């Protein structure tokens, strides 16, 4: 069940809006994790504007849960939350500033709509397994979604959680890996090799769906696939992405894990985002049904 052309184009506009807000926030904050933020922005767009079952009340008991295991992508997460009406957009202008409610890692006790405070890497899937089992204990049908980075897969706890998700048959948990191939010190395969990554997840008991994580239609298909899963194995969506996706001068460059831009670079980046968006619209028009 692919996205309709109309739906796809509307979601592209939303994704562009969020990428722009992420860039603006980096500019307001003076610096930020823009690389890893942009690589998962398409997944966030599909979750917050199509798949997550949410209400105006961020604490609604029966909402779907979302855990951002790569907590440093708060600079992408905050714009996504704001675009769903949680928190005031003006708060982004205080991002990282002293006593702001928002900073690099979002705090679940301070930012509306955040289901878990994350930041220490490798914890998110475990937390998500907990919420998924909580739904089961309470006989609730809501789903838990989790995005993990690829560098953080070095953490041993990730694999403890993977074993548990499969062992307990957490099919109400849908996990994404933001496979942007970069970590702070270099390429993942140079620092601590992860491949064959799909095989590893499969060996741990997951059904693995490998997709282009910068293609909204493929993300949509994969989520629909996971929702329709009738086996007792959880689904892992391995999203091949690019760090800094949308800004040509930082794209796929591990040095842009965290960075600051001057005014000239900000303007240039803004123009590059616009061009990227246009190209993506052309693809949506061409490939949409």
């Amino acid at each position, binding site marked *: 069940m692919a996205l309709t052309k109309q739906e796809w184009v509307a979601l592209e506009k939303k994704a562009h809006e969020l990428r722009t807000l992420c860039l603006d926030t980096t500019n307001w904050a003076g610096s930020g994790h823009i690389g890893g933020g942009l690589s998962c922005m398409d997944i966030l767009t599909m979750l917050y504007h199509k798949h997550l079952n949410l209400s105006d009340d961020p604490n609604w008991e029966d909402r779907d849960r979302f855990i951002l295991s790569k907590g440093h992508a708060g600079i992408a997460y905050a714009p996504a939350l704001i675009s769903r009406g949680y928190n005031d957009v003006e708060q982004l202008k205080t991002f990282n500033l002293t006593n702001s409610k928002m900073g690099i890692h979002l705090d679940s006790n301070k930012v509306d709509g955040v289901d878990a405070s994350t930041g220490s890497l490798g914890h998110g899937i475990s*937390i998500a397994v907990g919420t998924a*089992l909580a739904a089961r*204990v309470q006989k609730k049908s809501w789903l838990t979604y989790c995005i993990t980075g690829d560098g953080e897969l070095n953490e041993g706890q990730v694999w*403890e959680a993977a074993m548990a998700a499969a062992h307990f048959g957490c099919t109400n948990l849908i996990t994404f890996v933001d496979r942007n191939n970069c970590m702070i010190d270099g390429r993942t395969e140079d620092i601590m090799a992860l491949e064959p990554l799909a095989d590893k997840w499969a060996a741990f008991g997951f059904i693995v769906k490998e997709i282009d994580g910068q293609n909204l239609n493929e993300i949509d298909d994969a989520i629909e696939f996971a929702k329709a899963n009738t086996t007792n194995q959880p689904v892992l969506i391995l999203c091949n992405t690019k760090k800094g996706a949308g800004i040509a001068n930082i794209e796929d460059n591990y040095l842009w894990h965290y960075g600051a831009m001057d005014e000239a670079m900000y303007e240039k980046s803004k123009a590059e985002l616009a061009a990227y968006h246009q190209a993506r619209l052309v693809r949506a028009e061409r490939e949409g049904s």
Partner: protein
Amino acid sequence: MAGGLTFTAADSTKLATAEYYGKALCELGEQHPEIVALTADLAKSTKIGMFGDKFPERFFNVGIAEQNLMSMAAGMAKAGLVPFVSAFSVFTSLRAADQVHANICYQNANVKIIATHGGTSFGQAGSTHHAIVDFAIQRAFPNMTLVCPADGMETVNAVRAAYETPGPFYIRINRGFDRVVYDSTDYGFQLGKAQTMRDGTDITIIACGSCVFTATQAADFLKNADGLSVRVLNMHTIKPLDVEAIRKAVDDTRRIIVAEDHTVNGGLGSAVCEVVAEYGKGCAVKRLGWQDSFSTIGLHEDLMNIAGIDQNGLASAVREVMNKDFEADDNWDDEV
């Protein structure tokens, strides 16, 4: 509140402290469907498996994975459940410290950690399995409540208090059997309030866990042998600490000995010293426990002897402090 208690002090010869915990948790589980229990391949050892036998759909054994254990519990708590988590105290505090810090305490998640095999109570297993730094770690975490019960009955009270107190809660209990301090749960347990086991005017012993029993023994011995009036406080709640009781001990006795099955760095002894120092009045304090050293292999009773926290060790420490001349003019009131 005592309703439903199906065991008495007569059972204490048959019941390990953890079994009191298991029974208390089962009782709570009957009343509160939101309680779930988690462990890391220690269902039998920690007795949390008693809950699992009764409520299998609310019980999760995550295998030997304490980090995953704590993060999962945090996720469950954030989704409305009240998880009770049990593993050995050395692993809940060290292996999973980051998860307890970031997922449980930082989020103020309603997770109850019942850490067993506390102190050196798993004697023969040696220092890898002795928890002598857990108070220091848990006490440092904001939002954490920290309790070390003296025996099985107090464990029941602590477990009930954990359920009734929102937020992170850590209870440290021993492996195996504890000497009986209380013969029922009805002795006025109050979270955050020290229990006066013996009143006295010469010196105060502040103790927790298995040292409460040895402190009362030492006090009774010293009364008979030396005519000393030794106050014994059961400081079951290490955080929040009963500051008032410590200040009163400073005012009334001017001499304090702290006894704990823990390193003297960062635990109850340190906590008491902080209160005494900030109070600003003259008071001699001696901290007993593991003196910045690792423990050794042996029976728990022998290890308590080595650490100087058994009856003899405590009595010697009292005599030492009583015989020291801290104040030339015998007027402590000018020390402020």
